[in-house]
């Protein structure tokens, strides 16, 4: 039990995917200008990250490892992720327009979010078990969502601040992310 807790704390706070591990930064910077969109992205990512973490575990464990073709890891993981994401998108689009409204437009973006492939590869590297993989993926997603949502609320404030012209937009966003990462260094050593 505590193992899973540690994985969770580790992925959410200490080794936060975005601020410490540098994964999933493009959507972090790109989709965080408004709180609503950030929330949509966070939700969608949580879903995909957890799912792909689990799926890639299965692929690795039951296809790649038995056949001894580990070098196909990247290509098969990415295929699985892209396929799962696209299936989800199409089904959600039809089945629940409401949910699609919330998640739909973010789903395709997630395929090329390196956090997703990152989580799959890190799972293998850390030799996580099935359940650990799921917790790891979920924790990574929660960490992503947490900083994403906090960041978006900050950006809404910064958007109306009197930021020097050269720093408006991306630069101040990056600087804010830097200072957030600075603050997250406080969690170093927790786990």
């Amino acid at each position, binding site marked *: 039990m505590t193992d899973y807790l540690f994985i969770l704390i580790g992925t959410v706070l200490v080794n936060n995917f975005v601020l410490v591990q540098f994964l999933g930064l493009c959507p972090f910077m790109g989709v965080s200008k408004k709180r609503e969109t950030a929330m949509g992205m966070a939700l969608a990512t949580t879903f995909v990250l957890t799912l792909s973490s689990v799926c890639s575990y299965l692929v690795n464990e039951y296809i790649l490892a038995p056949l001894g073709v580990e070098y196909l890891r990247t290509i098969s993981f990415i295929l699985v992720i892209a396929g799962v994401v696209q299936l989800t998108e199409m089904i959600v689009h039809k089945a629940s327009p409401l949910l699609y409204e919330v998640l739909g437009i973010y789903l395709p973006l997630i395929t090329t979010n390196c956090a997703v492939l990152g989580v799959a590869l890190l799972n293998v590297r850390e030799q996580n078990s099935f359940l650990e993989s799921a917790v790891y993926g979920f924790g990574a997603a929660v960490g992503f969502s947490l900083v994403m949502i906090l960041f978006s609320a900050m950006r809404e*404030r910064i*958007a*109306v601040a009197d930021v020097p012209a050269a720093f408006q937009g991306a630069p101040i966003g990056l600087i804010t992310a830097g200072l957030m990462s600075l603050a997250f260094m406080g969690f170093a050593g927790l786990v």
Partner: protein
Amino acid sequence: MSAAAGMVTGAKVWKFPGGLKLNGHKTLSATSAIEDAPIPAYLILPLAQHIGAAAKPVVEVGDQVYKGQTIAAPDGFVSTPIHASSSGKVVAIEERPVAHPSGLSAMCIVIETDGLDTPLSTPELEAHPDYSELDPSHLRNLVRQAGVVGLGGAAFPSFIKLNPGPDAQVDALILNGAECEPYITCDQVLMREQADDIARGAQLIMHAVQATTCLIGVEDNKSESIAALNKAIDALDDRRIKVVVVPTRYPQGGEKQLVQALTGREVPSEGLPLDIGIVCHNVGTAATVWRAVTRAEPLISRVMTVTGGAIKQPRNFNVRIGTPVSELLALSGGTQGTPARLVMGGPMMGFALTSDAVPVVKATNCILATTEAETAPVEDAMPCIRCGECAEVCPAGLLPQQLYWHSRARDLDRAQEYKLFDCIECGCCAQVCPSHIPLVQFYRFAKTEIWEAERDKRKSNHARERHEFRQDRLDREEAEKKARLAAKKAALKKDTSAANPVAEAIARAKARKAETASGQPADPVADMIAQAKAKADGNKKIPEKPASTENSSSTDDPVAAAIARAKAKADQKKTDSAAPSDDPVAAAIARAKAKAAEKSDEKSDDPVAAAIAKAKARKAEQQSAPEEKPTADDDPVAAAIARAKAAAAAKKDGD
């Protein structure tokens, strides 16, 4: 809001959230008695002095008018008449600067007074000293005809508030004698000097709204007024009326705050006091209502304060509506130097005047002329430091700083999410802001922006409807035309195709090609259209002025086509004498085709599409029939039948 269920007794005083203790500056003007202001040389009477539609003039330039005569009649339900406040001649009905924060002009009736103050020989209203005989609806009508509006600030036509409606249950009438704004004392002296009118007015209004209790809320810094009111009530021996002393705390006099203080109930957002069984009037309104009903006096004058550090002799006047502010300043001994700011209304809610030529209106309770020391500097704002002081004092429980940030960012949606429209513009927040931000102006800015956006939205929705309506009309016309045409052509084709199947096939092939090029499935109706298309295409090659061609070459839309055609017409005539654009049939077909293309995915209520669908169905039927030729398409007869049917269907759907 558990208190809502309880009785309104006036025994307990609740506290409203926030609010401020302000220095009242009331002694400046409250010591002397009310003085009657003389008749000015000119009276300027704006047509819009109340909330709701402006009144409509019923006199003309040159007319002689008498005191109390209706010179403008209400226009619509939420509107009131306007009466001449003295006798004289109408010299102008024109735009004059009026009392408005914008400093803009608005329609006014200008009367050159004759100094005689002659009343109408037969008053328009009938006096009803014993109003208890009257049924409430009659009462309300009298009040309306007397042009009475709320004197407490908003100038809302009072008769509406006397008309709670059949289902409404009024627990209590509240008379607002709080007068919480600094400097203003008109209600204070009115209560002191005319307590009897107020008390009787209270009885009258209770009768009108069928209320069983009346609470008069007065701030505890007005002891003389409280005593006078109590005396008057004792004299009437009416136990239903009670003076409730409330703490001096701005904005105690705000309707919502006073209701909360006296009853513990909250007026729901976007609701009315009536929703919680309360009706609230200003004390002056009560007196005016009473005089209007029992003495047939319309609202042509009111008590108001002229005060401020820059006024030599601050005092209260009984002023005719329409008197220019400059006259009042002169009457108060003039000003000491130029006032730093001339404000109509109180220092917390009033607005700065850009000119002293504007007239006093029904809503004017105070003219304030301030010295520099009494005035906030125009420009010394710093950025908000989010100290939250503003939120501490906001009586509406808002987060003024967030309203400010969103208004400043022009993020009007967010401002509304933060309940911008629950802000009563009391100014408490701005009064405590260490950064000296003109917060209220930001809210007013945001509110007017939102109203404009709403106006624009309404207008654009309306325009969309009208545009769609027009499109439908054009569609219908096209469909009818086309149907006629199709029938004619089909008849024609029946002969020729029999004779020349090859030519027919070629035409069809061409048509289909044209269709698929534009992404549309080939179908019999389109067939016809496309055949004419070759001709119509000629239109598009005609050289046109670049400036006016944006629509013509790429468009699928009939309006645009029409527009483009109109624009290009002259050129076409010159450059291509054979241009078929003048050919009504070709043009009509081109448009119809365009229409069909556009509408083909909106199957529901489109006659053309319906026709197409029917024709297609027909085609499918024929396809499956074994004795038919391979495709219905190849059968001119069947095609003709389909077309005719489609035409009929189109007509039917169109009607």
